[in-house]
């Protein structure tokens, strides 16, 4: 994987992943909306030996097809497209405000589907490459504390499953990355991070391994696969009584 495009390159998880993708001749096309932060991330990758191009854009507002076309024009062959941006909204605020709910769905859901659909067309033409998105374990089951976020993530997850089906046996790999709890700016407001929490660097190691080998759904760290299997299997009668 030499030519890499990252949508939401200012994310803490994306930054950790990008550092692990550094190798001689690596080229990055980074897109994010905070220009100062984006420049910082780019300087770091450049100092580590990569060639880096950046574009400042709000990924909800941006013309997805135009952006993806620019990325392919700039990099030529694209080995990896990683969709990494997201927003964890306050669930109560969503319940009180429809615009807040719809914005969260747009950031975590529909805008990512737009980018994925546009990227799929190019990858199909290219006849190979990897499309990956960071969804979440929250996609696995709706629960009262974050079902708006979870539903948007589930939209992307199901969309990726469909793309995987579409590209089966045709060289394009589609990777759905589902992190558990990661200590990043997104989760800074939670205190008392216990045993289930991981650092961005830790999950980045798992993510890079998934990007290098696979196509499919990857829980990171891997133990979340078992935890979520249990969560999904619980009958509603029990699930509804849990403090989740």
């Amino acid at each position, binding site marked *: 994987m030499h030519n890499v495009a990252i949508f939401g390159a200012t994310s803490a998880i994306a930054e950790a992943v990008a550092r692990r993708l550094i190798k001689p001749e690596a080229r990055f096309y980074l897109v994010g909306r905070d220009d100062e932060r984006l420049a*910082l*991330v780019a300087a770091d990758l450049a100092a*580590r030996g990569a060639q880096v191009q950046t574009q400042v854009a709000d990924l909800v507002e941006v013309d997805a097809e135009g952006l993806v076309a620019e990325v392919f024009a700039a990099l030529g062959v694209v080995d990896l497209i990683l969709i990494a941006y997201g927003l964890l909204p306050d669930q109560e605020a969503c319940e009180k405000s429809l615009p807040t709910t719809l914005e969260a769905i747009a950031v975590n859901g529909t805008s990512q589907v737009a980018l994925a659909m546009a990227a799929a067309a190019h990858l199909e033409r290219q006849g190979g490459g990897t499309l990956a998105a960071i969804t979440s374990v929250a996609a696995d089951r709706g629960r009262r504390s974050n079902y708006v976020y979870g539903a948007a993530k589930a939209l992307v997850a199901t969309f990726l499953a469909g793309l995987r089906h579409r590209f089966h046996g045709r060289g394009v790999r589609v990777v759905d990355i589902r992190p558990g709890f990661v200590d990043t700016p997104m989760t800074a407001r939670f205190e008392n991070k216990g045993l289930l929490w991981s650092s961005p660097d830790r999950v980045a190691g798992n993510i890079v391994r998934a990007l290098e080998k696979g196509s499919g759904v990857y829980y990171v760290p891997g133990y979340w696969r078992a935890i979520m299997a249990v969560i999904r299997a619980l009958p509603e009668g029990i699930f509804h009584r849990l403090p989740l």
Partner: protein
Amino acid sequence: MEISGWGRHPRIDARVLRPRTFGQLAATVAGEVSLIPRGGGRSYGDSALAPTVVETRHLDQLLAFDPATGVVRCAAGTTFAQLLDALLPHGWFPPVTPGTAAVTVGGAVAADVHGKNHHRDGSFCDHLLSLEVLTESDGVVRCSPTERPELFRATCGGMGLTGVILAATFRLRAVPGPWIEVESHRAPCLEALLERFAAHAQAPYSVAWIDCLARGRRRGRGILELGRHAPGPAAAPREPWRPAVPADLPGWLLARPAMAAFNALYYHRQRRAVTRALRPCRAFFYPLDGIRHWNRLYGRQGFLQYQFVLPAEAAPAGVAAVLDRCAAAGKGSTLAVLKALGPGNDNLLSFPREGLTLALDFRLERDLPAFLQELDRLVVDHGGRHYLAKDARLSAEVFRTTYPRWEEFAAIRERYGGHRRYHSLQSHRLGL
């Protein structure tokens, strides 16, 4: 949220601000009445504690690196672990490294940290080409030994009190690879240990672990480790599994009988007088990083690390006197660390000076403060001083006696407005 230093004492409830860009950092600082910068939180005591702290964890980028010359410029939140990951594959190593890789470059500058090579290479700040510092009076400025040298001399070792270090540029050391050739010497008493130190003054790295609970003719027995970068197998060493201490352990585990047994075991593990081995450099420099959260071993009440330096002439007698006091009082728990330091530098609050430095861990007990005051007296009487990066309890009086340039420091801090904005629990206690 609750924060503390590595010794987990004291703990306070603080607002922790984590800006993601230098611009955000400046705006954050401007919006606060009083705060202190915080890096990896690996100082032991209260130097990075205040009701409001600004943490550099998201400012951990390399900003420039030239693999041909080994000059690197990085943001202050970059840790030594990150430096090693990025630079070691190119054959470069930090010029000086502390004993844990979780320390940030900002913290290393603020404490002017020393490593196992101080006797030959000086402390971390001796290798700086320049710093970028956010000051209260002049905004973001660059300083170096030649540019605003007074700000440089105050910020290096200045414990975060002059402003926030944003970035540092320094020269790395070229190394043949990730391996260290280690030679271990067993010494049956302090005198023998000091002889070995003197005999191996030219070794690139040296450090000794001593059994601080051994008494009589065994007093100060220990193991001197010498290291040098060496070519090794082409394959990089494997990252070992790092077990974690999952929760606080009961305090008695580190009480005297258990610790005496542990110390004796460590000493006797080395059967021969001299052994040699090739070790991965991370294992050599950061032995305790192998066990995550090892500070929980001391239980919830936490512990204090007590580190001081004694000038060369007074050191052998002074160290012996301190060890005698510890043995007599039955205090001092895990292994004590002894190092020979080379000449100090011109930085106003830097700790190192030529002589011996000893670091001892003490779990918190009711009679500990009185005991440590006795040790303070020994340290002062022998012309020594304490390391502020480990401190949580020193009095303003002892500090001012042993850091005679504190007034010069305070004047420069005032010139740059630091006294208006930057305060830690430690700076209040020390009367800075």
